[in-house]
């Protein structure tokens, strides 16, 4: 009897013991002078960091990175829960919303720039049943859209940015990050610096925020992937949101070309961001200040180079540089130095394909100064490889640091992207290939053709009309499908507008039609049943 009673618990215990027995087997294949490195933080940088981790594995480095968010990473670092953290924004002292302390406490740290990127705006606007591309917006228009001052895509300001291109009558629904995020912080930093008057109508206290305030028709979405899904959904017509460039690239959605100080509308390509960041300054003034060693992007926003993407910034790695740090060992410090040396140099070559941008020389040098601080904390660490002249970064030539390699290789924007010209429609878009070299989709001849559409703008509407389309006498818009094959997208600023999907005004009629249809199906049956019922009752 007792044996049988004991059967059940013993079987469970045996089973669990078998499971736990596996635990004793522990494989460590790291090199002797390297140690396992654990970091966490920004989800924004996760893609490239994961790639570096994969690349560093054959070199014997084991690195774990968990994307728990920038603020989580900063908190973990302060609590000695990780060996490094990655964050888009520096420690804030006190969180403006939660009033929680946001500081590293006793742990000594330095900010190391790791990867750059542009805050990109992706949108979903369909016209004539096709997704609109090549939309251009000035910073002011973007600021007004994201503060609820411009609410329709046919707003004159948007048309003016696009040199008179026709936009559908469609409500703008901005999509913002509902969770605290570094992307929001980067965007609102730019808003606060460039358009404080507009930004402060929504955010009266001024300054940056990690939690975007809700307003008007705006939709909150949790995480960049949800922002992208909200925009890419069938129901997402009319939405615009800010995400990392890689999310838009992976979904195949267009991003807004933003007006820069030189008067060109540019996309956040790897080179445009890198060129912009050559003007990034690092705050070196007051070591006791919270912003010590952080980025000052004012000159980036107003960089006069025509290849500048204004909303460019970079994320930081928060490095432990204290000589007394209870988590760090010499082996860990060495791993960190070698991992980041790879990241700053050869690893930057991977940035372009992932929608990031390689760090330019000024920031790589600043980063290496920070890495050297680890050597100062622990003399046993070797920093022989931390040297810009040995660095395989794609934006400069390792052997010749005085040469402005980036200026030589970064492509100039097309003439049709200039303010008051164009817009470039269906023209060549610069895609950075896996080799880090820009390639243009489309032959040079086509690009040249697309660069002068202003001259053929008037003719294209006429051509569309001659091709079978009709021009509405009241609006001047081309009605009907002049060229059903969709080749009108390559025409000039006067694009064809065909309402394929019901727009806002026609929803009422669609509803009435639907009601009528259902009535047509159901009412005869009801009437027949009514006329027949009394007969039955008599029976």
């Amino acid at each position, binding site marked *: 009897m007792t044996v049988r009673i004991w059967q059940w618990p013993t079987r469970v215990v045996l089973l669990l013991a078998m499971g736990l027995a596996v635990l004793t087997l522990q494989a460590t294949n790291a090199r002797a002078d390297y140690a396992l490195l*654990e970091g966490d933080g920004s989800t924004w940088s996760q893609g490239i960091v994961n790639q570096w981790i994969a690349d560093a594995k054959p070199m014997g480095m084991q690195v774990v990175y968990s994307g728990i968010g920038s603020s989580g990473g900063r908190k973990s670092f302060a609590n*000695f829960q990780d060996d490094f953290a990655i964050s888009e924004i520096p420690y804030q002292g006190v969180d403006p919303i939660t009033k929680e302390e946001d500081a590293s406490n006793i742990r000594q740290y330095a900010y190391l720039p790791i990867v750059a990127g542009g805050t990109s705006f992706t949108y979903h606007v369909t016209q004539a049943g096709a997704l609109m591309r090549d939309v251009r917006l000035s910073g002011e228009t973007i600021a007004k859209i994201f503060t609820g001052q411009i609410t329709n895509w046919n707003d004159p300001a948007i048309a003016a940015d696009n040199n008179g291109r026709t936009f559908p009558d469609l409500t703008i629904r901005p999509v913002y990050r509902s969770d605290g995020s570094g992307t929001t912080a980067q965007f609102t930093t730019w808003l606060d610096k460039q358009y404080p008057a507009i930004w402060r109508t929504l955010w009266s206290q001024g300054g940056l925020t990690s939690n975007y305030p809700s307003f008007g028709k705006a939709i909150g979405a949790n995480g960049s992937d949800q922002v992208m899904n909200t925009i890419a959904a069938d129901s997402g017509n009319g939405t615009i949101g800010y995400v990392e460039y890689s999310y838009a690239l992976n979904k195949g959605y267009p991003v807004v070309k933003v007006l820069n100080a030189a008067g060109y509308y540019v996309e956040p390509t790897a080179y445009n961001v890198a060129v912009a960041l050559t003007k990034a300054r690092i705050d070196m003034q007051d070591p006791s200040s919270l912003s010590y060693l952080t980025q000052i992007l004012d000159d980036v926003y107003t960089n006069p180079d025509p290849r500048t993407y204004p909303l460019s910034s970079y994320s930081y790695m928060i490095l432990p540089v204290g000589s007394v740090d209870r988590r760090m060992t010499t082996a860990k410090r060495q791993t960190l130095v070698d991992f980041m040396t790879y990241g700053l140099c050869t690893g930057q070559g991977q940035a372009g394909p992932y929608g990031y941008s390689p760090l330019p020389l000024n920031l790589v040098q600043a980063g290496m100064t920070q890495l050297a601080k680890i050597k100062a904390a622990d003399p046993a660490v070797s920093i022989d490889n931390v040297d810009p002249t040995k660095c395989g970064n794609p934006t400069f030539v390792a052997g010749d640091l005085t040469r402005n390699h980036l200026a030589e290789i970064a492509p100039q924007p097309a003439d049709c992207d200039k303010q008051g010209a164009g817009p470039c429609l269906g023209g060549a878009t610069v895609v950075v290939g896996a080799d880090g070299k820009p390639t243009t989709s489309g032959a040079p001849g086509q690009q040249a053709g697309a660069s002068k559409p202003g001259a053929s703008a008037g003719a294209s509407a006429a051509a569309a009309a001659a091709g079978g389309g009709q021009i509405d006498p009241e609006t001047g818009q081309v009605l009907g499908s002049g060229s059903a094959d969709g080749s009108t997208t390559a025409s000039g600023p006067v694009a064809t507008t065909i309402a394929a999907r019901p727009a806002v005004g026609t929803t009422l009629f669609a509803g009435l039609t639907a009601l009528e249809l*259902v009535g047509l199906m159901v009412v005869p049956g009801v009437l027949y049943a009514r006329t027949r019922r009394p007969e039955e009752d008599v029976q």
Partner: protein
Amino acid sequence: MTTVDLDRPPAEDATAGRTYVRHVDGPRPAPSRGRRQLSAVTASERAIGVGSGFAALALAWLLCFQLLPWGSPLGFVVVAFVLYLAIVTVTTSVVSPGPAVADRVAAAAITGGAAVVAIGLVSTIVFIFVRAAPALPHLSMYTHDMAGVGPRDPLTQGGLLHAIVGSVIQVGIAIVVTVPLALGAAVYMTEVGGRFARVIRTVVEAMTALPSIVAGLFIYTVLLLQLGMSKSGFAAAMALSVMMLPIIARAADVVLRVVPSGLREASLALGASRWRTVWHVVLPTARPGLATALILGVARGVGETSPVLLTSGASTFLVTNPFGQQMNSLPLFVFSTVRSGEPLFIQRGFAAAAVLLALVLVLFALARFLARPRGRR
């Protein structure tokens, strides 16, 4: 008025003005309109059901995808269901009288409602497996970890082994911790009782509604910050335990309460102590129910992401030591890959979700096997 019914009192007869015939034997008179079939489905009913279904689908397609801007599968299903009810009502009322219409409509509403729920469930599972299909056939998915595999590397490289092993270890530790505690709490609540037991029951019931992130934060604050433990599989298992304990304790409490008190009384009458009664009579009697309680707890624990997110870290390589080193688990792997926006990572995430579904199924089958009634061994 041929015969007088002797069963009825004369007074009632007088008011009714009728004569009742009592048939003692012999056949009953045949019903005038034929016997009404209550359960069987006639051909016309079947035709109405199928026809209405087709009509509703076609009409819903017209409405959702051609006329109104609701062109989503969810809108289609809901519109089709509402239209189906309307069409069934109308068609049935054409051929049948009132009560039959109410019956058919009620039946259609219940069947249709069940179908809508089934569509929801099946589409979830089908969606996961369809999205996971490109990744699942690769053997490396089950035999490799993600060490040295970048976000853009093909699916032939790298796999889910680290996440599977991590999940099994974490849930295993959580079971070892929670089962004795939860059973003890349940036994205390049902067998010992008293005022304090009521307090415990209230606390347990309140804890079942505990948001999972709070469990993670609790462990993060206590174990990681206060005690200085590092992120590890053990910390994650503790967070999962916080989630699983109230579920198992509450379900076990309910199960133990339905053990017939006659069994307890018999055992006590035979001179067994209370402890022996619980161990030898109450718990074995409730065993299948206790296994279900365990299943519910494991099902809750194995799919939790947020407690694990804060406490385990996300390693890319196989870690079998639950102490002192970051681990990964299936829900965390799904979470981090699906949110990455990288198409190949998203496929791996769906593969992990499919594996998680399969793992839960295996765990359920195992628990059922362990707890099957003695007679059928």
